[in-house]
């Protein structure tokens, strides 16, 4: 079972995930960090008012069960299956990102297909362990990741790479570009992705769902602050160059040289980013597998196999890294992802509020469940 702390760690690592690879809200140029901060606030509203509310009404069900309960068997199944595909698609993007960047920065001669296979396999291994194991991984990794980020920032500041003057002047072109960059892009990447946690929250071991809400929001705000700081660091170290760089933070660390000994440690930094990306892609992989396992009534270990194969095959669809980034930032973030992250959840929440009769009957059915679960994870 998952503890509150593990859940919060997962929220943080998940949101850090691939967002450390990009300069978010690059269109707002040197005001990008304000756009990110705005996105954090807007995302906070979405999560606390929609996503968490859905789970609060049905604390012991996952998204698939909620769909089935409120939309009926057939529509619920169809929507659920679409969500499986959405999770798989998100995972596919991360796998491809991971593999492409590995080729770019670490292994220039290794075939893409081999790398993606390896990534899918290590993802699959973690998924087979189930949510409890996976959330523990996030809890172990988070302090290590934060420590290394902290060291990077110290190094960047210590070597004089960070120059806060590059952030000035603030709001040179007014507030509009900031707003445009933030809404809806920043909400849907990365903050709106929290919709995935509708598959996970029910595994959290807690007597009171308000604790879960609190810890989630705390984790969310921490991650939001973290990403904003990262954005500031990127812009302050690279200036206008940040917008063109493939992986801006990695670019920034190449400026760091300690004496003549530590000149190029960017491969280590790349690994650090990939760790977070790995957690993120595995989270999607796990979410899709859990959903499929529930929809088809099979065990998680069996569901992980078709989902894994689907993700591996899907990763070949993008023609190149640029194609993948382009599809993501130009189309998905604006048109497709908001449907899954906001439109359907809002609809669902409205239906849930209207059909409160269904809920109360289901509540009674679950009266005994928390008790049995408590005894289950006593050891």
């Amino acid at each position, binding site marked *: 079972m998952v*503890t509150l*702390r*593990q859940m919060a760690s997962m929220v943080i690592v998940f949101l850090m995930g691939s967002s450390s690879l990009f300069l978010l809200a690059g269109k707002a140029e040197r005001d990008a960090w304000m756009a990110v901060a705005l996105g954090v606030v807007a995302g906070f509203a979405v999560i606390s008012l929609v996503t968490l509310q859905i789970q609060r009404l049905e604390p012991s069900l996952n998204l698939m069960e909620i769909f089935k309960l409120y939309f009926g068997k057939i529509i619920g199944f169809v929507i659920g299956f679409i969500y499986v595909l959405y999770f798989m698609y998100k995972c596919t993007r991360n796998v491809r990102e991971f593999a492409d960047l*590995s080729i770019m920065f*670490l*292994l220039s001669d*290794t075939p893409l297909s081999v*790398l993606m296979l*390896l*990534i899918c396999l*290590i993802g699959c*291994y*973690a998924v087979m*362990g189930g949510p409890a*194991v*996976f959330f*523990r*991984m996030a*809890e*172990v*990794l988070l302090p290590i990741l934060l420590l290394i980020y902290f060291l990077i920032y110290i190094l960047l500041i210590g070597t004089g790479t960070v120059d806060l003057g590059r952030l000035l002047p603030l709001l040179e072109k007014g507030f509009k570009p900031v707003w445009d960059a933030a809404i809806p892009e920043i909400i849907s990447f990365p903050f709106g992705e929290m919709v995935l946690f509708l598959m996970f929250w029910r595994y959290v071991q807690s007597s009171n769902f308000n604790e879960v809400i609190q810890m989630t929001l705390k984790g969310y705000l921490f991650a939001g602050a973290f990403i904003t700081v990262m954005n500031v660091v990127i812009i302050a170290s690279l200036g206008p160059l940040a917008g063109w760089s493939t992986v801006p933070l990695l670019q920034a660390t190449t400026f760091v040289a300690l004496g*003549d*000994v*530590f*000149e*190029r*440690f960017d*491969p*280590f930094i*790349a*690994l650090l980013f*990939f*760790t977070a990306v*790995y957690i993120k892609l595995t989270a999607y992989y796990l979410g899709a597998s859990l959903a499929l396992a529930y929809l088809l009534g099979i065990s998680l270990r069996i569901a992980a196999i078709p989902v894994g194969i689907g993700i591996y095959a899907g990763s070949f669809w993008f023609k190149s890294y640029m194609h993948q980034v382009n599809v993501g930032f130009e189309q998905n973030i604006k048109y497709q992802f908001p449907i899954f992250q906001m439109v359907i959840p809002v609809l669902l929440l409205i239906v849930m509020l209207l059909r409160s009769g269904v809920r109360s009957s289901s509540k009674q059915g679950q009266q005994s469940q928390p008790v049995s679960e408590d005894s289950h994870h*006593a*050891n």
Partner: protein
Amino acid sequence: MPTDKHAGHSGKEGSPGSGQTIQAEQVLLPDLDSNLERLHRFLGGGEDIVCRTLEHRSFNRTRYALLYIDGIVDGVAISTMLLGLLEDANASYTETEGAGEPNLYRHLTERSIAIGKLSDVNTIEQAGYAMLEGCSVLLVDGCLRAIVMDTTGGETRAVEEPSSQTVIRGPKEGFTENLRTNTSLIRRIIKSPDLRFEYKMIGRQTRTNVAVVYLEGIAEREVINEVHRRLDKIDIDGVLESGYIEEFIQDRAFTPFPLLQNTERPDAACGALLEGQVVIMVSGTPFSLIAPVTFAKFFQSSEDYYQRYDIATFLRIIRMTSFFISMLLPSLYIAITTFHQEMLPTSLLISLAAQREGIPFPALLEAFLMEITFEILREAGVRMPRIIGPAISIVGALVLGQAAVQAGIISAAMVIVVSFTAIASFVIPAVNMGIAARLIRFVLMILAGTFGLFGIMSGLMLLLAHLCGLRSFGKPYMMPFSPFVASNMKDVLIRVPWWAMRKRPTNIASDSNKFREGAGQKPRPDQEGA
């Protein structure tokens, strides 16, 4: 030996016990000769079975016989007892009214036998098994019961300094092969009435005594029950070492990591008991098992608690680092020299390149050659007769190391890497954790040789997923890290002073009894008016 057994044990002994067809137990008959004959037949004869028949001067000259197996009994105890018996046999008791069979039996048990612990049995099997344990049996003619006397003893190794887990400061006693000695070592350290020893017998043929030791009220009840349940399920011919039991009771079969700790130090076992763990002691081996255990426990040495906390913290960090060096260094060397040369400082890169110039093998193969050579040397060091030790070191160090470099087969840097790795692997206090690191090292080397740093990271992620999934008697293996337990972190990467570790490790010890020391014991110089 735990002798409370022969009396209460009949249930298990006759039952599937010997794995042959279940036979009805043979009840003792009134006739002494037939009893003796059947007991001999049960034990299969043999020169070491001693049978001494006596005849009492009083009690209608009733005959009785003393039996024991030579070599596993305490010779002094036997001769003292025999002396007493003979003296008694020659005395004439006139005051005894109605001389008869029950009276001689009572007379012997109450007035004559100079042995502390006696018990009754009434079948041939019970008597025979008691003798196999090292007890002596006294059969009285016309009596349906036999007296079992605890004369367990014989030659055993003395308590010596542990050979595999040495300390500079701390007790020098180690467990021996004798279970009774081992339990006494524990009893002498923890003089608490809450200390519990629960005995079991495992092994159809070896009938090995196993003791489950814990502190009532500190160990968690569920864990104790689980230990008993898993031990009871074991059905095997023989248990020669605690390793046999370990493989049966660990939570997951396929893992390189040890899911139970072993120790041959009584102080380490007592430390575990005081933290709420359960110790499983097996007769015939000095290595006791400790359960449940977490990953971090394998980096603690009992010496950590005897030395000052700052030194202990430093040493613990050294150990953790050594674990990672022993696991990762060769693969990092392979990955960086093969795939990421740009990470090296230019001067080092040039010198490495110069060294590797004439080397015919890729770094991966080179590393494999050296690592396997070293593993062979190490194994040879363990197996070879002590006398030829110096020869092996000369061959190993000079011929294999230096000559291989001079011949241009291996680069000097690789020799340094491999030697450093090897030395680092000896730092880990728990040998079985060191072996896990050695096994993983080879997998990581292959990954590093094919995928560079990416491969190493993939391997580490797999390892983390594996570790996070492990449990030891239901306790998560990565415990203080995940699930995170703040108070347990005081004794993991660092060790805080004793007065700051008020709580027993939460989640391992029972929840009802959390504190092991009083509050506010931090030394304050001014208070005592110094």
